[in-house]
């Protein structure tokens, strides 16, 4: 499936002179060592402060040697790394002892993402990551990273590499003068001499803005569970750090005082205060994380069919998503967010990387649900948004299944506890089993909610399906993006005469489910969404075997 593998610049294309090969930005000579040294900073500090068996001079010399090595490695990396862009492909060579060549055919390029961490930004640089969106392993890499080029060059590369041949030609025809005017220093195309970099030098287009950060969305930050995890991580790291320093927190006077006071207050008050503090820290941390990652967020539709997402306070990110890779959108509402009427919006697109496309392709920060649907509609160029379509409710048998799943485990746990307390372990109080039954209202409520959230629908171009209670997900999947169907039925589903219909697709998580629908409904839905695909495998209408099969009335 892959075309001729990269011939290290010797074969295939017309002879290219050495000057076609470009180096990374010279500022990387400073950035590479600096970043590595920053990463080693704790180690350096430790060596300087608590180094053993050596006099101070020895430590300093050792450090100097290490720094020198890092600098030399950085220089070597810069000297040996080169990249070249021809009409057909972009190639990067690197390595001194082990020479590596990575090559990506230009017509396979599906994404060009720019990232700039604090150090890169200080020096005006950006990392360019070129993706092909291919899942299959091949001779040619799926990804190529230029770390790093100047921010200006990065943006130029982004536009040039994402430009489809069609649009490039049109823009050349439109403005050859403009193309020649800014051609300097970028003549790597080498196709016909004049105006070859047409797409690259088109003036930065003022694209249509589909969404921008609204600071009132900050209220959703504390409602995101992931930030709570992050706060936990920070606290853990801090604890580790304090431990590493060999400081016993209780020996610090102030902390000791607080500890003293806590030990004299009632337990419930202590727990309450602690919970309050944890919640406050979590909320604050969530807000900080929200601001750091979503600062300056903008979603723009650029000419040529590219959606561009930019955000980030310290590390700025720019993700470009070709619209032809877009297969739909997903509105996800984790329970807390749903209570606050908030939602996340992600793109369902091919080549977003990762085995399961989750976590990437965010089209919006956590935002009000209405905004999520509105932006989804704009991104998909649909009005109204298919994610907000009216959904068909699923059969009541689906509710029964969910209630059973909510009740049986609780009953089993309660019975087990009763048995244990009565027969085996007398220490378990007799009321423990009954206490577990107290969970029933909660689980049943969740089951009912899960059922109410089930739904599916078909619009002119989209298959829409929704499910979930802990996180309610509404997916609108382009019907033309469906690449197969799976009908599955567990034993219990067979008893309930339900099936799960799964649309497989090249985008996002690869499979989107319509849970617990009647067989005929599932098949009709699939057949309607992709007419003709399922039809040869259906029993003919008014089937002659109908008598042998149990039929459902109503």
């Amino acid at each position, binding site marked *: 499936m892959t075309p001729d593998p990269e011939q290290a610049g010797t074969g295939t294309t017309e002879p290219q002179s050495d000057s076609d090969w470009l180096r990374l930005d010279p500022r990387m000579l400073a950035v590479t060592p600096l970043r590595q040294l920053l990463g080693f900073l704790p180690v350096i500090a430790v060596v300087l402060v608590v180094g053993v068996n050596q006099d101070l001079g020895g430590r300093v010399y050792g450090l100097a040697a290490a720094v020198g090595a890092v600098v030399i490695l950085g220089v070597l990396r810069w000297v040996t790394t080169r990249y070249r862009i021809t009409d057909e492909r972009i190639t990067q060579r690197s390595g001194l002892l082990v020479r590596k060549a990575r090559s990506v055919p230009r017509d396979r390029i599906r994404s060009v993402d720019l990232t700039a961490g604090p150090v890169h930004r200080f020096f005006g640089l950006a990392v360019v990551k070129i993706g092909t969106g291919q899942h299959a392993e091949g001779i040619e890499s799926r990804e190529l990273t230029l770390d790093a080029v100047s921010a200006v060059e990065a943006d130029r590369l982004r536009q040039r590499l994402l430009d489809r041949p069609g649009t490039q030609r049109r823009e050349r025809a439109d403005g050859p003068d403009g193309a020649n005017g800014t051609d300097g220093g970028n003549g790597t195309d080498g196709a016909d001499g004049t105006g070859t970099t047409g797409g690259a030098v088109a003036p930065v287009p003022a694209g249509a803005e589909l969404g921008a950060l609204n600071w009132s969305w900050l209220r959703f930050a504390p409602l995101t569970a992931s930030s709570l995890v992050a706060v936990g991580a920070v606290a853990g790291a801090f604890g580790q750090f304090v431990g590493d320093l060999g400081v016993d927190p209780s020996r610090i006077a102030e902390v000791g005082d607080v500890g003293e006071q806590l030990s004299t207050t009632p337990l419930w008050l202590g727990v309450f205060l602690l919970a309050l503090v944890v919640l406050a820290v979590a909320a604050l941390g969530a807000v900080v994380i929200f601001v750091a990652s979503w600062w300056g967020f903008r979603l723009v539709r650029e000419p040529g069919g590219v959606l561009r997402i930019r955000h980030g306070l310290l590390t700025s990110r720019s993700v470009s998503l070709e619209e032809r890779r877009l297969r739909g959108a997903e509105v996800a509402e984790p329970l807390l967010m749903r209570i606050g009427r908030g939602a996340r919006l992600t793109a369902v697109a091919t080549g977003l990387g990762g085995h399961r496309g989750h976590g990437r392709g965010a089209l919006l920060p956590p935002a009000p649900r209405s905004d999520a649907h509105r932006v989804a509609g704009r991104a998909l160029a649909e009005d109204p948004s298919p994610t907000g379509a009216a959904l068909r409710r699923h059969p009541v048998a689906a509710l029964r299944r969910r209630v059973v799943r909510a009740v049986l485990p609780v009953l089993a746990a309660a019975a087990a506890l009763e048995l244990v307390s009565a027969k085996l372990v007398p220490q378990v109080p007799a009321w423990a089993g009954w206490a577990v039954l107290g969970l029933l209202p909660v689980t049943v409520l969740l089951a009912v909610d899960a059922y109410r959230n089930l739904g599916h629908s078909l619009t002119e171009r989209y298959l829409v399906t929704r499910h979930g209670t802990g996180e309610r997900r509404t997916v609108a999947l382009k019907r033309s993006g469906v690449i197969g169907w799976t009908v599955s039925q567990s034993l219990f589903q067979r008893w309930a*005469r339900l099936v799960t219909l799964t649309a497989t*697709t090249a985008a996002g998580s690869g499979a989107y489910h319509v849970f617990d629908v*009647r067989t*005929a409904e599932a098949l009709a839905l699939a*057949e309607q969404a992709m007419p003709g695909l*399922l039809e*040869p495998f259906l029993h003919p*209408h008014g089937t002659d075997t*109908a008598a042998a099969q149990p039929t459902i009335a109503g």
Partner: protein
Amino acid sequence: MSHPFASEGTAGDMAKTVRHGGGVQPPDQPTEQLRLRPPRHRVSPRAVTWWTTQAILLAVTTLIVPVVGLIVWPGARPWLVAVTLALAVLAVAYVLVMPRWRFRVHRWETTDDAVYTSAGWINQEWRVAPMSRIQTVDAERGPLQQLFGLATVTVTTASAAGALRLEGLDHPLAIDLVDQLTKTTQATPGDAT
């Protein structure tokens, strides 16, 4: 038992009720049946032997632990005997039932336009992949399958959600099928996404 699809509603009914941007409303008159028919071809009968061998291996490895326990830990015998016996009954049932049940369910079919498979036993699954979306077709055979002259044909699409697997085909047939599918998919236009 093998194909329990039976319910109300038809594609024709649904077609009339699609609205622009709106939802699909339930068809008012439940009339005709809409069911999947089983794929045309069964897998090789030797697959039953293959599945049985697998099941025996699994059953034996599962039973090793409690049996060893019985030998080295006499104190636990009263209840461990019951556990072992229960496990043994389950294992025998599994060895006897699973392969035959699978053989009734596992089927496959290819047309000019699509590959259609059914698989499973307690939980069952019907899969359809259009030719235009198929990326790779492979035949593979583990040691047991080689022993029984069987092969598994794997048909992958661009979806990350798993491939269609045609398990327990007659080996020469599997090779032919791979050839035929490869030719058909190459002749079918499209980039499979």
